[in-house]
């Protein structure tokens, strides 16, 4: 089962759509609630990242019988130092974004913590691709 979501830059009211939809589906598949929670947190963080930091992007999710694979790709600006970005508390979020309660520097570490497999690729000027998978 494949799903695709467009994620617009800067529109925080829409962040959470993909995670809500996927959450509903996983419940219908009777996936263990603890597993669902991890997936949903990871997807929501990824959505917020695209909204807060990028110029826009999309999320592709594929659910199979044993788990879910999510690919989140944006169209820039890319991450300069991935190692730093993966540290808890490190953030490049603007003051405006922080004032909205986002950008605490927990996004990527949270995704890493809540997924079974996680890879991140990024090129400055090109964009960032996150790929993660959780098994049921």
């Amino acid at each position, binding site marked *: *089962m494949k799903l695709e979501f467009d994620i617009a830059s800067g529109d925080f009211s829409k962040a959470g759509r993909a995670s*809500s939809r996927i959450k509903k*589906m996983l419940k*219908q*598949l*009777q996936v263990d609630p*603890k597993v669902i*929670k991890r997936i949903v*947190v990871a997807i929501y963080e990824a959505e917020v990242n695209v909204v807060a930091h990028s110029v826009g992007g999309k999320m592709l999710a594929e*659910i199979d019988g044993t788990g879910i694979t999510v690919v989140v790709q944006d169209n820039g600006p890319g991450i300069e130092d991935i190692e730093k970005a993966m540290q808890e508390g490190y953030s490049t979020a603007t003051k405006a974004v922080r004032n909205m309660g986002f950008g605490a520097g927990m996004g990527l570490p949270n995704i890493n913590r809540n997924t079974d497999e996680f890879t991140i690729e990024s090129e400055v000027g090109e964009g960032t691709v996150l790929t993660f998978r959780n098994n049921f």
Partner: protein
Amino acid sequence: MKVVEKYHAITVDTDKCTGCTHCMKACPTEAIRIRGGVANINSDRCVDCGNCLRACPVDAFYVEHDSLEQLNKYKYRVVLFPAVMIGQFPEIYTEGKIYEALLKLGFTHIFEVEQPIGMLINEIKREVEKSTRKPMISSFCPAIVRLIQSRYPSLVDNIVPVKAPHDLAACHAIELLAKQGVKREEIGTFYVSPCSAKMAAVKRPLGEEVSAVDGLIKMSDLYNHIMRVIDKEEKTDTAPLRKNLTLDGILWSLPRGEARHFKRNSMAVDGIHNVVKILERMENDEVPVLDFLELKSCHQGCAGGILLTGNRFLTVERLQKRSKRYPHASSIDISAVSCLGIKDKMKANPIEPRYVFALDTDRLKALEKMQKVDRILCQLPGIDCGSCGAPNCHALAEDMVQGKAKMTDCIFLQNRYLNENKINIEKATKNLEKAWGKNRFDADCNRRGGRNEGF
């Protein structure tokens, strides 16, 4: 684990129901379908919140209850009622007059259920402190507990495993009378309920087989009975009957009534649709770290209960004024309202998740069904008209993959099939009659729904 049959308070009076679909659209768990022209409740999904009762323009929903005639069966007749009952009466009826009226109606003992609230507060605080999961969610509102069990199974462990006042009231009353040497079979306990959810919860307490309540009375019924016998003058002093009542008890069922004991580390949400939004966020870890979350299914808490007669805001106002005349729970000697084994009684049995929204217990089959739902949705018009007897197109598609509905149940698809000569008009009419009943579409003011004036 012993499986206890699910009990429901709400049933449909099929003679009254016109199949107007208002309830179907108001139901927060999509538990209602229209079949044969009348509403049909899926008991696995129903949480007894009572939104259907509120939405119904013809009073077709029926809440199972007892009449006051049942009182004659017992020597000692105890009325157990939540404090909101007093709040719905106009100010000229003092609580003394209301108590007197209850005695006149034949009750021998009067017991406001929030009397042992001090003990409950301590127990809840202990549980919240002990738990590593935050925030802990109140178990006060039975509709909310059931909602979490079915729609938010990941949050069941966040529910405070302590019972609500209504669970304890009967136990208290029985033990207090037992101390005076009264036998159990001589006592009739009657709970006066503000809503359908508590009716169901009292009749079949979570995880318990036998309820300590002998009779269930609708608060709206009792209101009418009281108004019939209430006096203009207060003749006897009934104040001693309220000596264990507290400010905290009176406020308990109102918004922030529980949350206020956790000061700013708490939040209170009322209205089941608002609660759904908060629980969705909580599942995503989007709720700030709080100790305690108070969730109530009705707006303005129990003051907005479906079985109350008074206006909910006036009820809250009167109760707030009333509460100021009573002491804080902390200043009351708890042993006065304590009863044997109360510690055990306060503990709720484990609250298990109930996966009623799963498409199939076999995950691969569920996945297959989900893909099918997606394909069906491409065929449906997506305007959620409800003409098929399901609340929206998505619900219809789910019904289809579960074998509970057909493509031709959609009137728009039917029209297309007619145009494509895939079905004939007789078949199409038969399909409509399946959802809406025979002769439903005749030009006749006296047929079912013929005089529906809407809202």
